[in-house]
């Protein structure tokens, strides 16, 4: 059962309707049953993507592979903290990879972001802060595709460069203010898209 699901996820192209909830379910299975089959499916889907993301962010392939491994080890150990009502598996695993990357860059500094990781488990009493809909990975990807190309590019590039705005501005040869405006309008549009889409549901 898990294996079939995982296979269908693996072979899906990026514009197919991703069975994203199946991926979420794999994390809850790891948490509930220490399910190694589910974990292997998660590893096969996410570890190569985490590695690719880290390489685009400037890590060497070997460092990226090691951090991808550590990310998946943390997925195994922290699966009980995953709350599918708050985040998709993809967003949660992104968060883990980001935290490990920052910790590896600033070895010895206290961690800033551990609160984010534990938020779902420790802090269920902040319903105001939850933007309904962001836990649906397919919907978020649909929202991303609703942006114009400039906005989507500015937002995506924010994930790959330190000192984002200035470097993006230089890379694209576009004034800093324009980059900031694209990010701002893009983020507002995403929020409107997700809230409107979710409005009648639930």
């Amino acid at each position: 059962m898990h294996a079939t699901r995982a296979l269908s996820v693996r072979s899906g192209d990026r514009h197919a309707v991703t069975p994203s909830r199946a991926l979420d379910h794999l994390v809850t299975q790891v948490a509930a049953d220490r399910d190694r089959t589910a974990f292997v499916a998660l590893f096969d889907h996410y570890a190569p993507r985490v590695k690719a993301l880290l390489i685009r962010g400037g890590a060497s392939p070997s460092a990226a592979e090691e951090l991808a491994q550590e990310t998946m080890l943390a997925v195994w150990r922290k699966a009980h903290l995953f709350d599918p009502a708050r985040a998709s598996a993809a967003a949660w695993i992104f968060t883990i990879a980001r935290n490990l990357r920052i910790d590896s860059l600033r070895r010895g500094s206290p961690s800033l972001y551990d609160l984010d990781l534990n938020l779902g488990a420790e802090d269920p009493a902040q319903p105001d802060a939850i933007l309904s809909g962001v836990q649906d990975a397919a919907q978020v990807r649909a929202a991303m595709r609703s942006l114009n190309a400039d906005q989507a590019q500015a937002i995506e590039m924010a994930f790959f460069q330190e000192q984002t705005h200035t470097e993006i501005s230089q890379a694209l040869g576009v004034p800093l203010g324009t980059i900031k405006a694209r990010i701002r309008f893009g983020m507002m549009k995403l929020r409107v898209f997700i809230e409107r889409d979710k409005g009648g549901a639930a």
Partner: protein
Amino acid sequence: MSLRRQPSEEQLLAYTAGTLSFPEAIVVATHLSLRPETRAWTELATAVGGAVLEDQAPSPIDAGVRDDLLSRLDAPAAPQAAARPPTADAALPAPLDRFALGPWRWLGPGVQVRDVLGTKVGDCRVILLKIASGQSTPLHTHQGVELTCVIDGAYETHDGVFARGDFEDADPNVTHQPRVVSKEPCLCVAALDGQIRLPGMLGRLLAPFVRL
């Protein structure tokens, strides 16, 4: 929906992406711990991070790497991060509560400052400022970043009152002289780039002695 006394959308995106500089990220994280409603934006940005991850073209990983990890799954985890340093202040909001702090230093009448240690990136670093009721902060920089989040008390600028949890991204081109309007002292965390200048006679007198 527009952000008021909060970090901008692009600062929140960079914070969530992990690409904001460390000193700036500390001030944003302090704001987030005091103003949870801002988390709607970081949750959105986190979801975008998930979408970006999902859309990556997979970079192959050798099967041996996976097998190696599987064999380590049940090994005991390494001990958690070190205990809070002795000079940290547990009463501060997260994430400031875990950083070692320098001693309070006198900076002018009613104004004290202490360093948040281990936060420096280039010339940018994080400080705590404590300003007495009715006093102005007699300081500003003319370079780079100057982010502030109020932890206790309140101050007023030409732009209105800033109280607990409020975030200010000061324009470095504008002389910045907030006045504390709360009865209690105003405690702020700030990320500063470049040297702070104390304007006027006091600044000229103190310049040789006070370095921030």
